């Protein structure tokens, strides 16, 4: 047969070991280390630097958004991206069709002859307003 402890009965107080431990905890709580001014200054400097870094990033994002808005918003940004991608593709793997175009553009003369321009008087008047019409 088991007996149920009477909840109203006085409970035994803490033993000497428990009391000693509680006293030690209280003493340790009272002696908790306090942060010095140097540590607080370092921590607040971190906070300021982090806020400044965030502000800088936000500013760059704002400028980028303003740039695309000035270009014409999202459609312009999409068009720009498409053009950039197409340029990259053509540069990396040019289609065969472009060989003919390139050949037509860069056909003879292979060398440009600047000799006539260097003759005396050929460039006269170019640095004056009105040019050679004067």
């Amino acid at each position, binding site marked *: 047969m088991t007996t149920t402890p009477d909840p109203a009965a006085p409970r035994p107080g803490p033993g000497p*070991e428990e009391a*000693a431990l509680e006293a030690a905890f209280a*003493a340790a*709580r009272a*002696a*908790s280390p306090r942060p010095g001014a140097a*540590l607080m200054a370092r*921590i607040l400097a971190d906070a300021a630097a982090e*806020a400044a870094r*965030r502000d800088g990033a936000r500013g760059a994002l704002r400028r980028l958004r303003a740039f695309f808005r000035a270009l014409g918003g999202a459609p312009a940004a999409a068009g720009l991206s498409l053009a950039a991608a197409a340029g990259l593709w053509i540069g990396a793997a040019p289609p065969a069709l472009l060989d003919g175009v390139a050949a037509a553009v860069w056909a003879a003369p292979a060398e440009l002859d600047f000799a006539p321009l260097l003759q005396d008087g050929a460039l006269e008047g170019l640095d004056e307003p009105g040019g050679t019409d004067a």
Partner: protein
Amino acid sequence: MQDHRAAAASDPVAVPDDAALLAAYARGERAAARALADRLVPRILGFAARMLGDRAEAEDVAQEAMLRLWRQAPHWRPGEASVATWLYRVAANLCTDRLRRRRPAALDDVPEPADEAQPGALAGLIAADRAAALEAALARLPARQRQAVVLRHLEGLANPVIAEIMGVGVEAVESLTARGRRALGADLAGRRKELGYDDDA
């Protein structure tokens, strides 16, 4: 202590809570950072100092934990977690990393109890000596027990909060705390008279 903190945190009229201060800092209010640091750094520093037994290392941990809080500020979701609990968890992980990196012969670094061959010199010990004796006994506890005991009995946190910080169940916290208390009690028992505890009874 826990009740007092809980009451202060739940009273929106008295002072802005930690999450409100963090949100204010994220909006660019620098004064909120100071208020938050004044409130949280002493707690984190005390916890880290007891975990590591080294003031300089504890300061590094406190600074690093606060830096992570500053970085987290814009992403903080109110109501999801307590700022203090989050910060304790970060500090606990930083302390664990540092303890793991220490050389295995760390027992050599554990502070020895005061020389028991000088009972006369110990007769007038004051509370600071009791605190020092407890700190030394804490340093001899296994790290998990030490963490649970410090959070419960020195930081005054409730067991569910400690469980969240340590990433374990409440039962595990109760077990760690009970074992830690027993070990501390046994450690201090031999020194009870010289530390003046018997005079308190």
